[in-house]
């Protein structure tokens, strides 16, 4: 192990010019790293596959008979709700992964490299977006098997799935902020569910808002999860409501516009 023979000798560094292209290449490198983690852990892939299947089956079969949904059968009503809930939960992975990296000193290494600072976060959220896209695909297939059908056009259905997946992406950015402030991965896991639970359950994801106590209804209606679920439902049954769809995309854009710069700012300022 003599370093002298192996060309580890220092070299005068060439002057550094930060290239705008680094954001893209560095983000891809980081995303590649996280995708490899999924490939290297077959267990993770199994969990990613089984969890959505479990959710679909449990909700559809267990609650299927109990919840009345006027004018629409419960499986069709439920599927967009479960999709959204699952991608939101998937978005919490961003917090846990970043908190782990911080704990292990990996973020320190990245921050001491002359790379694009935003790439660590863009790469991680991109990897989580792809993971969520996979989950949505699995859920769709399982949904089809238990009788879920879309009655709109194929492009409408695809737009619904895209909307849902990108909502998960916006939650990833919220999640990144929590991950960067958490003292440990466990703390991050706990903290991210504080906003995520009310967000998913105080919504139209599982029950019609009209069945909630009257004082709660305005809150549930304003919830972005309700907006996204309603937009997706409209697209799936072939009755797209343009207003709701636009509002849903506005929520996604708004969440990213607020939480992405905030996360990048705290990453750069990290001590």
């Amino acid at each position: 192990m003599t370093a002298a023979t192996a060309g580890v000798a220092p070299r005068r560094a060439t002057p550094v010019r930060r290239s705008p292209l680094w954001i893209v290449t560095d983000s891809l490198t980081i995303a590649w790293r996280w995708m490899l983690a999924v490939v290297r852990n077959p267990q993770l892939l199994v969990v990613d596959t089984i969890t959505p299947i479990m959710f679909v089956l449990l909700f559809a079969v267990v609650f299927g008979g109990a919840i009345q949904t006027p004018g629409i059968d419960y499986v069709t009503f439920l599927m967009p709700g479960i999709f959204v809930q699952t991608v939101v939960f998937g978005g919490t992975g961003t917090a846990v992964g970043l908190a782990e990296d911080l704990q292990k000193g990996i973020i320190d290494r990245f921050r001491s490299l002359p790379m694009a600072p935003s790439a660590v976060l863009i790469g991680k959220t991109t990897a989580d977006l792809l993971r969520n896209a996979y989950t949505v695909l699995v859920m769709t297939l399982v949904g089809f098997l238990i009788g879920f059908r879309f009655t709109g056009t194929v492009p409408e259905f695809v737009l619904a799935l895209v909307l849902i997946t990108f909502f998960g992406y916006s939650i990833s950015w919220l999640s990144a902020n929590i991950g960067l402030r958490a003292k440990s991965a466990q703390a991050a896991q706990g903290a991210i569910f504080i906003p995520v639970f009310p967000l998913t359950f105080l919504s139209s994801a599982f029950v019609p808002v009209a069945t909630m106590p009257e004082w709660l209804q305005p809150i549930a209606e304003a919830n972005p999860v309700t907006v996204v679920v309603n937009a997706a439902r409209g697209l799936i049954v072939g009755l797209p409501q343009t207003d709701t769809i636009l509002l849903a995309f506005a929520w996604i854009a708004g969440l990213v516009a607020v939480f992405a710069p905030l996360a990048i700012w705290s990453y750069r300022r990290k001590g």
Partner: protein
Amino acid sequence: MPELAISAEGLRKSYGDVHALRGIDLAVPPGTILGLLGPNGAGKTTAVRILVTLLRPDGGRATVAGHDVLHEPDAVRAAIGLTGQYAAVDENLTGRENLEMVGRLLHMGRPAARARAVGLLATFDLTEAGGRPARTYSGGMRRRLDLAASLVGHPEVLFLDEPTTGLDPASRLGLWDVIEGLVADGTTILLTTQYLEEADRLANRIAVIDDGLVIAEGTASQLKDRLGEDVVDVRIADPSRTSEALELLRPLAATEPRADLADGRISLPVHHGAGTLAEVVRAVDGAGLEVAELSLHRPSLDDVFLSLTGRRAEAEPAARAEDAGSAPGTRRRFGRPGRRNAA
């Protein structure tokens, strides 16, 4: 070369009312190793984090490889390597992929990053393990991979923050060889350690840091001249006669001996350990003093600290907790509340 590889003037950093650094000066010429020696919480890690651009100082200025850490962070980052206290490797990636990732983030281009990874794996005896995920590595292998990762960019200046803490003796020796090889090749190294032996073996100069200040600086032999080569520890069976024994032994000591009057313990820094040991025995025996314990050892960080500050180096167990300020009455302070302490 007149230009310093690392220079720091008056670096200060506080966390609330915890003063992690209270004005640190460092000057490291190119191609040398500076050992930053100090106990947990002395401010070593805080100093390193400022120099590698991870942390902004509250005051003072610093340059690394000729670049200002505050105003040219990217230029500093291109010139340095960092190995922290924990092996910062991605457990899911193989050894080779870990190194390739760093190469790509240094914008070396994929073929160059791969070639560099293969070369470093060979240097660090990891060629065989290079295709396995890092989670299958032993502690020593992870540390070697981590060190290799910090060398991908051919750094001019390398920062090693307690690189051997938690390693078994064999791995520690292996790492020391690597570090010596790097310096022979012209790399400048700043090494933090809690082990006097490590600083002694590796460093050209040693800066002893305590409570956010450099309290002694010099070559290992200069420090030893102040401390003696060895330490003889004697415990007198009858503690009430400790002062009497101290007077007897003082002429044999290289520097002022220390005594604990309550339990009869005397620590005697000496220059020629084995020879002095016999004289110690004769002296106490001649006075009719019974010796309960007698030992000879190399000066530890504790001895350095006792000698320089009159206090023990180790923090009280309660004060080792990460949360600064939660252990009132302890003497050691902690620089970084939260994730890591400022060792």
